[in-house]
């Protein structure tokens, strides 16, 4: 297991590697953050090349106004006995356009692969759009693979429940969005960064 101290956080707009190679018995723990006001195309290929390699890849995109954000992820299980987990959550407001293309490739001999991918999105406005396209290319037969993608709005019943307790509508939305992004932020210990994310969320709610 990777310790949380080995987690790498990259901010879009700064340099992000476009490929990683994860060798036998090693692990990679990467989180990519995209703040409002950033447009970016983020291609990223991860090759798992030796047994026991572990990958934990996460992403969060908070997009507003005319931001355009595209992730192109390729998770390449070249050998068996490796595990990869992907979680990408995004919130689109204004007339932002977000896209997530996530490919998992499991080579013919890569038996006992575990590969998981999730991409969840919240669209705050009529004008914002999200395109999510998971792709699985599995050439081995003894594998555990899953993917899930959702695009939705903030739940209005939850909002009314909170408002009926005196929480203003905007604040209710902020609470909902913070809880939505929490699984991605799990393990990030930089308090200032978490604070910055909460402020970015707040800016989307208004």
């Amino acid at each position, binding site marked *: 297991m990777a310790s949380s101290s080995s987690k790498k956080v990259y901010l879009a707009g700064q340099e992000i590697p476009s490929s990683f190679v994860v060798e036998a018995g090693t692990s990679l723990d990467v989180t990519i953050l995209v703040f409002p006001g950033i447009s970016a195309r983020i291609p990223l290929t991860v090759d798992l090349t030796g047994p026991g390699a572990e990958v934990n890849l996460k992403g969060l995109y908070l997009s507003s106004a005319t931001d355009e954000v595209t992730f192109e992820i390729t998770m390449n299980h070249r050998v068996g006995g490796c595990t990869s987990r992907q979680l990408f959550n995004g919130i689109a407001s204004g007339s932002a356009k977000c896209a997530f293309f996530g490919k998992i490739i499991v080579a013919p001999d890569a038996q006992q692969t575990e590969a998981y991918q999730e991409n969840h999105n919240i669209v705050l406005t009529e004008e914002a759009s999200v395109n999510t396209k998971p792709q699985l290319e599995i050439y081995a037969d003894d594998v555990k693979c899953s993917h899930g993608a959702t695009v939705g709005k903030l739940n209005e019943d939850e909002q009314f*429940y*909170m408002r009926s307790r005196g929480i203003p509508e905007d604040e209710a939305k902020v609470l*909902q969005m913070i*809880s939505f992004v929490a699984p991605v932020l799990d393990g990030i210990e930089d308090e200032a960064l978490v604070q910055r994310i909460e402020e970015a969320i707040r800016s989307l709610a208004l």
Partner: protein
Amino acid sequence: MSEILLKISGLHAGIGDKEILKGIDLEIGRGEIHAIMGPNGAGKSTLSAILTGKPGYEVTAGTIEFMGRDLLEMKPEERAWAGIFLSFQYPIEIPGVTITNFMKTAINSKRKAEGLEPVKGSDFLKLMKEKMALVQMKPEFAKREVNVGFSGGEKKRNEIFQMAMLDPVLAILDETDSGLDVDALKIVADGVNALHTPEKSAIVITHYQKLLEYVRPDAVHVLKAGRIVADGGRELIDKIEKDGFEQF
């Protein structure tokens, strides 16, 4: 006659083109507990939705005054700040938001609206502890996500806990007794009774008389097909128990 807290006059309301409430008149005095009883589909939940400002419902005629203010002009959160509380028939689950965070945000939102500083951490925890004890919630309850994985009884106790935390002037209990076993019903009723003072009022909306054996109303109204068809005292409860709602 005590001070009028809530005054509903000629209220017509519904969802879209469908009229559900067809002319409601009701006055609740300060300190009074009123029961509103009626069969399924009478409009009981619509009335609580209108009182709390639930989106999607439309008032087509009539007025509602709460402590002299035009209630219908107020947002749901403003109604909460003014002292209205609804115990939901079906409490909503909010994944990812803990009870502590939920209640702290609610209390501080009201304080902010009143121009006050956020509540002190130690004062808040003390209040939480005291009110959790009132509905017999264990300490770990504070860390749980709001209503997520709660049993029916826990959800209703959580409603009464929130009511205790927010200390409303007018509590509306919408079918709070539905789905409760006798023990949970007793806890809920004891909580409601403990919170009731001469300054506060309550509307108990119910299909059955169960809860009314513990929470004793000052007045009883029968709501049927969107109208109040009978008003009286506790003797109405016995009459309904004996002969049902068909007699009205």
